[in-house]
């Protein structure tokens, strides 16, 4: 199973990732890829551009705090 053709860009910063993502409405973020890549290979998903955020160390953290967690606090 081979995905449809796509462009690939590795973001060097969060700002660059946002810019790349905003420049192409069919772009998708690639992080772990373990959901996205199988769906691409089955051709259920055909992004024109993958923006790889896998090397953005800025995003590589889990922080604990006393604050609330919730989408609608």
């Amino acid at each position: 199973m081979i995905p449809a053709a796509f462009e690939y860009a590795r973001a060097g910063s969060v700002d660059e990732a946002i810019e790349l993502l905003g420049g192409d409405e069919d772009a998708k973020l690639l992080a772990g890829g373990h959901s996205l890549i199988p769906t691409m290979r089955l051709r259920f998903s055909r992004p024109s551009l993958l923006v790889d955020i896998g090397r953005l160390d800025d995003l590589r953290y889990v922080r604990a705090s006393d604050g609330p967690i919730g989408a609608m606090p």
Partner: protein
Amino acid sequence: LHRILVDRLGLTGTNVGCDTTSCGACTVLIDGESVKSCTVFAVQADGREVTTVEGLAQGDELHPVQQAFHEQHALQCGYCTPGFVLATISLLKENPNPSEAEIRNGLEGNLCRCTGYHNIVKAVQAAARAGA
């Protein structure tokens, strides 16, 4: 990534099972961390070190994890074995002395349809004792 490894580089030790990230047969290491190579684009490994099962033995001397799988009879058909060996190396790097529960949890992304996992767990314990 696995297509580059197998078709272009001729490293046929990396087996593909499910081709959908479920079974772990295709596990390799990227910079020492296990990944399922059927679901990694080769470009994601650009500039990083990829280790396949071919890269483990030193000449005729098996890697300690390979030796442990051999001695503990941790395989039957062997199709899942390269993935298990590499996942074990990654697990023991993170946790050099895992409990049985930690081993089973750590290898839950790898499926074996022959052995029932018992000897695989024993092999990981033996490899840990050997300081792998």
